[in-house]
């Protein structure tokens, strides 16, 4: 009796099932197709990546990851480079100097872009990496226009960023509270600024932003705000501040009269492949250094009359 009943219902199911079944199986097939696609993708990649390493003449895959400040220059130079060497696939990504150094050290990328020396970062074995300096960037304190500040003494700047001076009137500006905008802890720009200005003392805890663009906007719109930016990000809404009468210009950086500057580095690990070597050579060539680098507001590495080492010691060239 029991079996009969279930039998009856299955027969009924069968009769009704024809159309619905098709729908069900279509869905099932769709899902199966997707999973196949996923599996297929995995395979396709492994074959494509192995293709990259076996390079003759000039072909292959170059990936540069890291510093967002260096990214636009690297991307443009990369585009020009691949225009000439169509077999090379060159990818430039940001992610931050820390990511760049970590990944080049791990061997995951061919070039690690960084704003700071690898020696300055804990956890990076600098002796395993090769440094290629591709540009110099100058940075200057910037204040909101309303503060009425155009020049500061180095000592005053230090006192502002350590929280000793909290009102612009103490340094000859308007009666307005100082709002400090810092870059993120560990950022290359902040490290450069603090090495040159604070010289070892800790900055007061304050707002932190992680990009030049955010700093540019916030300082421009917040009364009493002060921060620091690379020269190329100056706008007419900001006041770049001279220090001890020295103006933040490329010429002053080249002679180290302006002290707040740093290199842009491209790090490689071990012996880079041909395509990477060619690209690094291209970065150092006159085509890039004399036009691209300058157009972007960076300073050419060829124009520098001094050089700085990882400890910050400056020597004449």
């Amino acid at each position: 009796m029991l079996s009969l009943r279930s039998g009856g219902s299955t027969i009924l199911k069968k009769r009704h099932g024809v159309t619905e079944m098709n729908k069900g199986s279509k869905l099932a097939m769709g899902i199966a197709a997707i999973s196949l696609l996923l599996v297929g993708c995995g395979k396709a990649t492994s074959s494509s990546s192995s293709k990259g390493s076996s390079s003759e003449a000039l072909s292959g895959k170059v990936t540069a990851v890291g510093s967002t400040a260096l990214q636009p220059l690297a991307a443009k130079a990369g585009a020009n480079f691949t225009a000439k060497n169509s077999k090379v696939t060159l990818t430039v990504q940001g992610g931050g100097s820390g990511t760049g150094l970590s990944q080049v050290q791990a061997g995951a990328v061919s070039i690690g872009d960084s704003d700071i020396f690898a020696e300055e970062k804990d956890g990076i074995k600098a002796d395993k990496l090769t440094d290629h300096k591709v540009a110099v960037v100058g940075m200057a304190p910037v204040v909101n226009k309303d503060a009425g500040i155009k020049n500061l003494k180095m000592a005053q700047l230090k006192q502002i960023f350590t929280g000793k001076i909290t009102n612009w009137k103490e340094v000859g500006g308007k009666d307005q509270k100082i709002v400090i905008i810092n870059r993120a802890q560990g950022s290359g720009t902040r490290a450069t600024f603090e090495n040159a200005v604070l010289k070892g003392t800790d900055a007061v805890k304050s707002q932190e932003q992680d990009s030049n663009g955010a700093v540019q906007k916030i300082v421009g719109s917040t009364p009493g705000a002060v921060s620091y930016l690379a020269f190329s990000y100056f706008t007419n809404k900001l006041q770049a501040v001279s220090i001890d009468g020295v103006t933040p210009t490329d010429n002053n950086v080249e002679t180290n009269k302006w002290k707040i500057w740093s290199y842009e580095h491209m790090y490689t690990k071990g012996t880079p492949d041909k395509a990477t070597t060619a690209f690094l050579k291209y970065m150092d060539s006159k085509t890039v250094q004399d036009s691209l680098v300058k157009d972007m507001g960076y300073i050419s590495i060829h124009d520098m009359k001094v050089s700085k080492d990882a400890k910050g010691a400056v020597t004449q060239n």
Partner: protein
Amino acid sequence: MEQTNFQLKKQDAQSHEWDARLHRATRATRKDWIGRGISYLCIGVIILVVASMLWFITSKGIATFTQNHVSLWKFLSGTNWAPDQGNIGALPMIVGSFAVTFAAAIVATPFAVGTAIFMTEISPNKGRKVLQPVIELLVGIPSVVYGFIGLAVVVPFMRHLVGGSGFGIISATFVLFVMVLPTITTMTVDSLRAVPRHYKEASLALGATRWQTVSRVILRSATPGILTAVIFGMARAFGEALAVQMVIGNAAIMPKNLISPASTLTSQLTTGIGDTIDGTLPNNALWSLALILLLMSLFFNALVRFIAKRGQLKNGR
């Protein structure tokens, strides 16, 4: 006698065969198994994804305590966040995250529920044709755009309204309120629509006014759904980084009031992660923040689930 016995046996065999046929799965039943299998597989994939994320964050997050030997208590109760100098007190960010998440949820919920009631009970037509598309549109605005509108509109507004620099928890609350509104509203609408029609009809037939019906019948039976909507909204507020970071000031200091710069777990995480090196204390500390975030949302989840369960019991019986 023998013959009947034989016939009986034959009958028996026949019925056995019938039995076997009836017990064999038909195509429809097999389809049902396959369908069930597919849905189990899908949930399996999701569990796998969640599990790998959990493992990933946990293993990275506890490294601060197992490898760098920072005491858990110091991490949770410390107020000094300077990972580069080895100080990792996460309390300011924990307080900041809690404050903005709760504040945003508290502000947004009445608005979302009100709008949802309007869309389902008062004017379903306008709701479907105008409000719903517009609300869905809001979800598609990138957080970075919210951030910059917040910086251009909300921060100056708060500066004039309450003083200070304009950066702080109150500005973040305002921006998050707008960001979580679509999520909470749409999900509330769904749960209000899911209330069986006859509940409403019965109430109206008893002579209850619309508001009485809404407040005592519809909202009551939709409570678990609304609570889920609120958690999803809070989840979005929790996880939001780019927009909050621009308006909260992102300063790792204990928030003294609603208008002083503060920071959240996510804003610190996003700001710092690109500048740290894999495997070092600053990097591990950031992953520990992610771990807290994870544990906090687990906790909220459990809490709301508990409340929802109790609400359901009261309703049902």
